[in-house]
């Protein structure tokens, strides 16, 4: 499949409905279609051409075109390109056909579209509110341009329950909003018959603070990387990196090669400590605290290393549009290599021990099953998809930063269960070590930041996908006036993977639910996009420009 073939298929299917196409390089295809053809286009791309649905973004475009811009994104992983389907929904009738019946994985994105932009997805099988709080008024949509980031609508409580009630013959067991193994706020209602799970429901987005709104209203291009990094406490660098790459692509900024390598090193250091953290948490969830303590002990030198290299254990503040803010000195190489070889030695022992540990295998095997077809339909990502046999890794499929010059092993397992997801992460840790070593060897000398002299013109778009430890992090930027994006869309991998929880846990017993949920390595703050909490006063507040 090539972008030309995709264009041909869309032309055949939609005819006049395909209004225009535009290529930006060989790896990006932007199509604009008539809103009536959106389901056909989605079906053609997802089922016909074998694309993977990524996310939907909604933009308030009423000023220029008197319409809402609804954009569906598709990835073609085997052939390294992304297809964007733009539709303009008339402002006086903000409704569009839902693509969720065709692509179940689009369910959340369209609910979010309804919440935030007020564009109704007609025919959505589950049109309940997703992102906005329960007491938010029905007709206020924060992503519209007439709503500012400082507006606070009055709370409206209509008293209707927002979550599903237990089906006949089952009991609801709450997992969250406060639960010992879920370290962030999220609420699963798990419906059990005896101990067997029959269904579940999810309510999250308790941390949603409208970071995308801030990005297009209050912040400037070079402030966003720092707030993007605070989306996640584990894979924050992924977000700032993806944002910067999206802006760089839109504006055509050439990043120095050395900066690409430095970004790659930090992306892999994050994967390293993230997978070690996950392994420990997984052990803790199934009552194996020794694994938890040992892997976190092994992980700590990585944090120290990051502190030495950047000044911070986490949230490095390294990325900026055009490159990175600090160089890595050759004097640091011995320490990096020492940390890597220490971890490699201990990790190899751990990796060999796990398949032989009968309690671990007994607890993790044959639970949380997600078939390859379910994973495809729900658009699962990262280790979740790879454990269900889908060979998908952005580093290999859509090389970014320095990955086009590096050897990356794609760790695919066929077990489809929680054990397979464990194996994927166990195997990916040495791969991360090997990638960092290659970077240290091949890193060229030179500048680490491109000089940007001209203002970034409005109306350009850029896509960036980064393989976070949990899967593909996707950012789309549409450039705008006043030195800030018109629209910045963030899709963290957990956003997709959380939608696969229900098929995983149905049929398992309640005892397996925490580890099943844990097996996607859920990152709720990524999914929700951002909370800033003052730890001294406990107050939650939104950051404004002056403070940044």
């Amino acid at each position, binding site marked *: 499949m090539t972008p030309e073939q995709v264009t041909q298929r869309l032309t055949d299917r939609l005819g006049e409905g395909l209004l225009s196409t535009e290529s930006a390089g060989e790896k990006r295809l932007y199509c604009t279609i008539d809103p009536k053809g959106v389901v056909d286009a989605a079906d053609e791309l997802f089922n016909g051409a074998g694309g993977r649905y990524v996310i939907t973004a909604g933009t308030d475009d009423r000023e220029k075109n008197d319409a809402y811009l609804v954009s569906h994104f598709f990835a073609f992983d085997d052939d390294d390109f992304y297809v964007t389907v733009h539709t303009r929904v008339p402002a006086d009738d903000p409704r569009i056909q839902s693509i969720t019946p065709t692509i179940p994985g689009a369910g959340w994105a369209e609910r979010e579209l309804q919440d935030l932009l007020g564009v109704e997805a007609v025919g959505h099988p589950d049109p309940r509110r997703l992102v906005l709080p329960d007491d938010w008024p029905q007709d206020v949509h924060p992503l519209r341009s007439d709503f500012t980031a400082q507006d606070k609508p009055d709370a409206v409580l209509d008293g209707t329950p927002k979550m599903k009630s237990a089906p006949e013959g089952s009991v609801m067991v709450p997992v969250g909003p406060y639960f010992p193994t879920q370290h962030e706020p999220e609420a699963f209602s798990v419906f059990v018959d005896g101990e067997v799970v029959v269904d579940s429901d999810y309510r999250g987005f308790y941390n949603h603070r409208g970071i995308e709104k801030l990005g297009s209203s209050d912040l400037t291009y070079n402030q966003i990387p720092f707030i993007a990094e605070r989306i996640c406490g584990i894979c924050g660098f992924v977000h700032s990196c993806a944002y910067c790459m999206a802006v760089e692509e839109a504006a055509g900024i050439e990043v120095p090669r050395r900066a690409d390598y430095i970004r790659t090193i930090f992306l892999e250091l994050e994967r390293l400590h993230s997978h070690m953290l996950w392994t420990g948490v997984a052990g803790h969830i199934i009552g194996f605290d*020794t694994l938890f303590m040992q892997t976190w002990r092994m992980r700590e030198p990585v944090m120290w290393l990051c502190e030495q290299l950047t000044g911070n254990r986490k949230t490095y503040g390294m990325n900026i549009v055009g490159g990175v803010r600090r160089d890595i000195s050759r004097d640091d190489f011995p320490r990096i290599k020492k940390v890597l070889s220490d971890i490699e030695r201990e990790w190899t022992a751990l990796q060999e021990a796990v398949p032989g540990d009968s309690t671990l295998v007994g607890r993790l095997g044959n639970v949380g099953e997600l078939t390859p077809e379910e994973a495809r339909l729900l658009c699962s990502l990262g280790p979740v998809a790879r454990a269900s046999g889908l060979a998908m890794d952005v580093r290999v499929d859509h090389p970014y930063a320095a990955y086009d010059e590096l050897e990356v092993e794609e760790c695919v397992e066929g077990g489809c269960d929680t054990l397979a997801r464990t194996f994927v992460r166990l195997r990916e840790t040495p791969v991360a070590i090997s990638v960092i070593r290659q970077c240290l060897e091949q890193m060229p000398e030179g500048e680490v930041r491109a000089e940007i002299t001209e203002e970034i013109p409005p109306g350009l778009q850029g896509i960036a996908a980064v393989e976070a430890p949990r899967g593909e992090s996707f950012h789309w930027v549409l450039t705008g006036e006043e030195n800030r994006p018109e629209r910045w869309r963030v899709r963290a991998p957990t956003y997709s993977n959380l939608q696969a929880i229900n098929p995983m846990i149905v049929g398992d017993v*309640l005892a397996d639910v925490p580890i099943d949920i844990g097996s996607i390595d859920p990152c709720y703050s990524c999914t929700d996009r951002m909370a800033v909490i003052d730890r001294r006063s406990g107050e939650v507040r939104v950051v404004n420009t002056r403070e940044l």
Partner: protein
Amino acid sequence: MQVLTPLFHVFVFPGFLFLIAFGLFASWVDRKLVAKMQNRVGPPLIQPFADLIKLLAKEDIIPESANRAMFAVAPLVAFAGVVASAIYVPMWSAQAANSFQGDLIVVIYLLTLPAFALFLGGWYSTNPFATIGATRVLSQLFGYEVPFFLACLGPALAGGSWSISEITAAQADGGWFIAAAPLSFIVAMIALIGKLERVPFDIPQAKTEIVSGPEVEYTGKRLALWKLSFLAETIVASALIAALFLGGPHFWGIPFGDMPAWLAGLVGLIVLAVKILLIVFFLSLTRAALARIRIDQMVEWCLLWLGIPALVNLGIIIFTMS
């Protein structure tokens, strides 16, 4: 004096005070050992005691929807059962504070009281996590209780008595019944993990799955009582296993007969304490080395891999005796 002696046995030694003090100490040993195995520093000696004081000072809440009487009485029953059973387990010499033919059966039954009380307390607190935990308590009970009972029958047959004191006395010459009933000993040790609801059999409490299960609604004094019940049960059940398989307070070469009574009692107590701590070490080791398994896996595994070896060992003992 004749009135005071039983009271002393119940409230001071080997009952209430001793069980609490030694239980807290054993829990410190356990926490420290596990911490060392996990590359941690571990708590100071005073920590379990400080935890207890803190719990006692906390607010005592009974959920509105709970059955008040059952909820309140359950931890008392559990603790009383354990303290009562301590009377019949030899602690300082082969002779326990009290004994009679059949006290082995009584002690085994008294030691199941905490599990039953935990079930009732959890069930009547009506919290979904607690009720699920409560049903798991009962399911698990069937898994470990039968093998534990079969394992205890081994020394009873070998010693030819239903009295723990007599079984212990029969090992006084150094012929510990662990030699006659090795399989029974292993079974009893593993079943003990289930009885005390520790990793890998902490399924009913599973704090990462069902938020500590039946105990979830308990606070303050009553929660402290639950913790104490299981600490005391650790001591009594370990002492029981030591008495049945490891000669109780006896040890080779220590001439108890030549010592004054108080010294013999003291040395006997120290010997037993060391044996109990060795059993606690085994419990710590399993806690550090294993993950929690599922209830269905637990019951199936226990009936198969504990039940059958215990029966085989019984068969061997009966065969060699006849």
